[in-house]
């Protein structure tokens, strides 16, 4: 049985009634052996980025398990999220995926109230018996595109459009900067925070500001293709985020980091169906395919492709860790020495910049 409930939830409170009634609709159609799966998205499914990729994962779940799925899109992080998650939990969903960092505490709170419902929270660090976390090692992808940027940037200055100063984003910036410096020791990464996951206009403005300030390459940790489109217009290069964005930047996109949640979502829903689901923490990277790449753009020369492929290969076979010392922080203090690597604990709580990253990291 397949059924999709599509909801728009933008204005807090006003839509509450709508959310409740629409979800209630799908309850009566679920039968005992079916799993009902809920998804909470931070952006619209048509963002062509982060949420879009999660929604492809949801579609894979429907196709491969036959489970019924519900999704609620554009849910604000914070109090509104708790309400949406609770509605899903109280309306017969067996497993609920909450797909943004800011849903961590709301998810945990609802998970405690609904011990029989399984919860999966993306990119967070709090677990419970019925709440697992999952994330992808996007920093591995950042190391690959950082290598390309280091080899191809002429000015050695790359603009990085960032969303919120959380470890996930800071880690990506640092991995990118370190990989770039490996190729070009003088490389500078200029970071601009737009304090939003999704605001095409503002993301584009940030890209313009960075290009005006001398960046000849743009990369981003926000969800819309607008920055890449600006890069295309201004004749500079860049990297797609979360999904292949070459339609918006046929010459500017050198490659894109692609989030592939499909296999994970399918396996977790199947586990709920046969009762083998257990809580846990999954953090997978290039090796399992959770972090993938779009094909190289025509502008990427053969030697750069070879170098980027070598980084991918090194990460997969374990011979290369993106956070290998010596690593120096922004203040010039050495964090780790030659040959050491940062462990996952440090990576998960990263709140400092490496040297060569320009900007102030608010706490």
């Amino acid at each position: 049985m397949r059924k999709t409930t599509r909801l728009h939830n933008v204005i807090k409170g006003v839509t509450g009634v709508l959310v409740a009634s629409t979800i209630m609709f799908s309850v009566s159609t679920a039968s005992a052996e079916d799993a009902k799966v809920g998804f909470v998205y931070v952006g619209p499914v048509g963002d062509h980025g982060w949420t879009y990729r999660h929604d492809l994962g949801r579609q894979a779940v429907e196709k491969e398990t036959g489970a019924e799925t519900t999704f609620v899109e554009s849910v604000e992080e914070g109090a509104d999220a708790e309400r949406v998650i609770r509605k899903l939990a109280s309306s017969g969903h067996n497993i609920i995926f909450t797909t943004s960092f800011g849903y961590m505490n709301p998810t945990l709170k609802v998970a405690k109230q609904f011990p029989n419902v399984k919860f999966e929270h993306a990119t967070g660090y709090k677990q419970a018996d019925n709440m697992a976390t999952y994330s992808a090692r996007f920093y591995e992808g950042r190391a690959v595109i950082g290598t390309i940027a280091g080899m191809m940037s002429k000015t050695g200055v790359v603009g990085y459009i960032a969303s919120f100063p959380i470890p996930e984003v800071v880690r990506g910036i640092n991995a990118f900067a370190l990989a770039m410096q490996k190729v070009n020791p003088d490389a500078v990464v200029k970071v601009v925070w737009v304090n939003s996951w999704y605001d095409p206009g503002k993301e584009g403005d940030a890209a313009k500001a960075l290009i005006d300030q001398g960046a000849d390459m743009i990369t981003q940790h926000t969800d819309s293709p607008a920055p890449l489109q600006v890069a295309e217009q201004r004749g500079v290069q860049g990297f797609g985020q979360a999904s292949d964005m070459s339609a918006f930047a046929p010459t500017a996109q050198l490659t894109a980091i692609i989030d592939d949640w499909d296999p994970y979502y399918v396996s977790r829903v199947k586990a709920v169906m046969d009762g083998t689901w257990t809580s846990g923490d999954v953090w997978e990277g290039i090796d399992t395919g959770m972090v993938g790449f779009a094909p190289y753009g025509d502008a990427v020369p053969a030697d750069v492709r070879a170098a980027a492929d070598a980084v991918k290969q090194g990460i997969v076979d374990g011979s290369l860790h993106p956070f290998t010392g010596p690593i120096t922080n922004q203040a010039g203090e050495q964090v780790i020495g030659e040959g050491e690597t940062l462990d996952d604990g440090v990576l998960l709580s990263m709140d400092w910049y490496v040297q060569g990253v320009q900007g102030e990291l608010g706490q």
Partner: protein
Amino acid sequence: MGEVLIAAVLTIITAATPLVYASIGEMISEKAGVLNLGVEGMMLMGAVCGFAAVNATDSSAIGIIVGMLAGSGLSLIFAVLVLGFQATQVATGLALTIFGIGISSLIGQDLVGIAYDGLPKLPIPGLSAIPVAGKLLFNHDILVYGSFVLILVVSWFLRSTRSGLILRAVGDSHDAAHAIGYHVIRIRYMAILFGGAMSGLAGAYLSLSYSPLWIENMSAGRGWIALALVVFATWRPWRVFTGAYLFGGITILQLHAQALGIGVPAQVMSMLPYVATIIVLVLISQDHNKIKLNAPACIGKPFHPTS
């Protein structure tokens, strides 16, 4: 550095233009006594329909017109509900926004992922060759020029024309306006439709010029900012215009400051446009008598022609 400054100002103009359209349109509607909270929804309708029209016809002129019509089309629903059926303006406006967000996503489903080059720049012959000023003022697309014309025309209309006076009269005291024979309902219809058309243009500017693509919910709250600007600027056209540029300007300048590596936390930077715009507009609008003079007294109140 001069080049960077010019580039920054050009970006400021593009950031302020949608706010100018949406807030001036809303101001006219509010001057006639109608509070339409549906700006965000009308903007999205303008954005998606304008983009769809350009995609279908390859004509940017048709795109702009369709965007405008889409905005006023949506506002017509609002007008019929609040003027014809006396529905509450606040609730109807909120519903209009929700409806606009939903219907624009539906219309735009097949438009996600399509790229467009953006409206052509129309340099004004002769003037655009002037150093600095030529680049800043005379080398834009049609909608930016249009926003300059709009503010001039609207401020002249409200200040110096008989029709402008009637519009204000309807917003200040609909009973009095009705008693001396003006068609309150008809004037309000026109004001709402004009506001819708301007919101539609603001949306069309987003999807055709600002970031020329369609993705769901791409206005990202600009409609609400436009609404706030009208109130903080105390319903005066040039202050609304100033507010739009102030907000757009500080937004862009803080992005540049970050790119320069100025040591201020990013959260403070992101807060600046909101805080600064409110402070400046409140400071320049301190005179309570003048606020009373400019605020439409009948805003949000339903009008019963029979009573």
